């Protein structure tokens, strides 16, 4: 066991740091761990994020793991992690490319033709194009394969109709990955096809959703006779479910890496400053026991991450066990937010950034974390994945599995 960098890793780390020092400011000590749902973005923030991405791409520090032929660095997974660790120490613009690079890029690279990769990957990398993920629908969230938006073939094109929802960043996106039903007569998982859609195409309407944490990053996206050329289809007709799984596994891995664990040191710090019954909360045994529960989980997640990194460096591929990080981390983040408010006594309900303790960050987190427990696979879906794909327990009994999709009951 050895936490130290190898000489090669240390040299790489110092290259990363040198470039970052020359191009960004170090983070202040007061940077907060965020509310679990990422920073609230607006047009200015999107432009800043694009400019930062361009700067990195020009210097060869964008999408490190991606192949050199598309502008990446061909770096190893460990090098990519080292870059992430170093970049996190600097005050860089909020990232609008999480979905573009975390999900869309890997999916296009896994399932796209050479022509498709050449067309789309460079724009993701240079920050020219923001991408979004058009998966969930009003009647198809956890039951994603039950989606109802349709694709009907028309010559060299497909005509898309239907509605998507929970599409992060659709209002800023140039391209989207889209899974739709191309064959309603096939069983649900077999009748799906996966496309890349131009978000500026005629017939697409984007409506932001007002979230409980005040943000408007999620959207509804309506498709009315939108034309997509067949050349924008990823993989075979009817193979959309398999392509979607690639996207989803990448999504959980990238969310799992964030989670709620990073707030633990702020919570311990808060317990030092708050007094209960005339002495610091941190000296009260009931407080100590709750903090210990959080700390054990937060550190456990961090060390689980190190085990995953070790597996990566040994050339292994992390599998469905990555779901653990997202499941445990999201609940932990919400529980810590609630305890941060509990420590504030009667002020727990004050959500005024000017007056509240720590800029009311605990209250913001309390309002943000319910989103993380649902986005990218609800807690319940993740428990199904762990029990079925890690533990090998029997799958759900499916009443809809081998039935033509059009015959599946849909309720109201």
């Amino acid at each position, binding site marked *: 066991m050895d936490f130290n960098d190898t000489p090669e890793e240390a040299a790489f780390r110092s290259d990363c740091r040198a470039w970052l020092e020359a191009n960004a400011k170090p983070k202040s000590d007061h940077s907060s761990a965020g509310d679990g749902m990422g920073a609230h973005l607006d047009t200015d923030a999107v432009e800043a994020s694009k400019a930062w991405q361009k700067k990195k791409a020009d210097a060869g520090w964008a999408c490190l793991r991606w192949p050199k032929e598309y502008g990446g660095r061909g770096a190893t997974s460990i090098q990519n992690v080292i870059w992430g660790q170093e970049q996190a120490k600097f005050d860089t613009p909020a990232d609008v490319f999480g979905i573009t690079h975390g999900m869309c890029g890997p999916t296009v690279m896994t399932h796209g033709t050479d022509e498709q990769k050449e067309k789309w990957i460079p724009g993701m990398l240079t920050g020219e194009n923001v991408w979004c993920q058009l998966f969930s629908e009003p009647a198809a969230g956890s039951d994603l394969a039950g989606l109802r938006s349709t694709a009907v073939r028309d010559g060299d094109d497909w005509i898309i109709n239907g509605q998507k929802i929970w599409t992060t960043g659709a209002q800023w996106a140039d391209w989207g990955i889209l899974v739709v039903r191309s064959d309603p007569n096939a069983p649900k998982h077999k009748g799906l096809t996966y496309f890349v859609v131009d978000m500026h195409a005629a017939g697409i309407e984007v409506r932001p959703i007002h979230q409980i944490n005040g943000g408007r990053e999620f959207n509804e996206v309506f498709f009315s006779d939108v034309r997509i050329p067949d050349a924008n289809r990823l993989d075979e007709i009817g193979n959309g479910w398999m392509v979607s799984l690639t996207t989803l596994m990448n999504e959980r891995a990238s969310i799992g890496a964030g989670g709620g664990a990073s707030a633990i040191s702020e919570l311990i710090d808060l317990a030092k400053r708050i007094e209960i019954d005339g002495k610091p909360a941190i000296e009260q045994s009931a407080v100590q026991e709750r*903090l*210990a529960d959080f700390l*054990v989980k937060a*550190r*456990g997640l*961090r060390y689980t991450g190190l085990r995953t990194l070790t597996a990566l460096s040994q050339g292994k591929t992390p599998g469905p066990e990555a779901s653990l990080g997202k499941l445990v981390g999201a609940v932990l983040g919400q529980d810590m937010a609630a305890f941060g408010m509990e420590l504030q006594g009667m002020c727990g309900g004050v959500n005024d950034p000017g007056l509240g303790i720590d800029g009311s960050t605990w209250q913001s987190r309390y309002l943000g974390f319910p989103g993380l427990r649902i986005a990218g696979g609800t807690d319940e879906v993740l428990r*199904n994945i762990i*029990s079925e794909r890690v533990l090998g327990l029997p799958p759900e*009994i499916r009443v809809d599995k081998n039935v033509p999709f059009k015959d599946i009951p849909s309720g109201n």
Partner: protein
Amino acid sequence: MNFDFSDDQKLLKETASNFLKEHAPLALCRAVLESDDSYSAELWKKAAQLGWQATAIPEEYGGYGFGQLELAVIAEEVGYALAPIPFASSVCFATDAIVLAGSDEQKKRLLPKLASGDSIATFALTESPGQNGGEKSKTKLDGDSITGTKLPVLDGDVADVVVVLADCGAGPTLALVELDASGVERTKLECIDPSRSVARLDFTNTPAEALGKPGEGGRLAETLLDRAAVLMAFEQVGAATRALEITKQYTMERYAFGRPIASFQSLKHRMADRYCDIEIARSNSYYGAWALENNDRELAVSACLARVAASEAFDQMGVDMIQLHGGVGFTWEFDCHLFYRRSKLLSSALGSTASWKRKLIRRVSGQEAA
């Protein structure tokens, strides 16, 4: 970055696993539980032939001179097998105490017999209910004799040597007592897990000698508890892993309402949660092992993390194992109670989970020297 055991350590783990598969089926644990025996002397001897007890003892005292990581991989397999042997008390705590704090003469006299498995050692810190090991001791060490009562002492009825926390006037001091000496009364107590044993030890002017410096026994005992907690966490993780495997197997074979009960989400989700607990505990234990091996300043915190995570993971797995088995889980014939009993023996043996939680936060917040 290499947060993993070495190939040699993995090989050692596999050898231990194969050995216990052959020589320590759960029937052995049950046999000890149903007999008057306090442990399996036969398994202890066979383990000694493999050199387990000698693992971390320096070569000059009859050991192999390996480190704590080697003990950790064995401890995990001991847990997985619910092996009915005094591994934690003798190897992970008391032997370690003598290696760390013993004089050359003490090491020469005691370690070879411990290495060969001919002798069993244990530790005696607490004296009454509610204590977790760090309390002031009423037992007095007066020069070369000791007087007082220790309760409970894991494997105290079968041990040959015991490391006792006592007060010597200059403060807390660890003492070595050989239990065949005069003035020793041993009383075997009913144990929640009769595949293992606990005892009360009464000393009356019993011959004893200081282990380490007089007055420094408190700090030494804390360090020894931290070190043993990391190794016991591996034992708990191993046992919890086995309990989850057995529960999985049973719920996949048991049908109700026309389907395997493992296909119901209320059961699947509970097993998924136990898997998460166990992996979080495993990761914290790995970190503890790293700190242990590198004698790092992180040990004091990492031991608490490993201890709390592993105690809670195994305790909850023990509870859920019975619940998910349903009625048969409450029968003597099914093995669930072996795990349920062992989980509580281990989670109390080094101090309560809550006491480790408080210690963890005192240490990370600087209220207690770490």
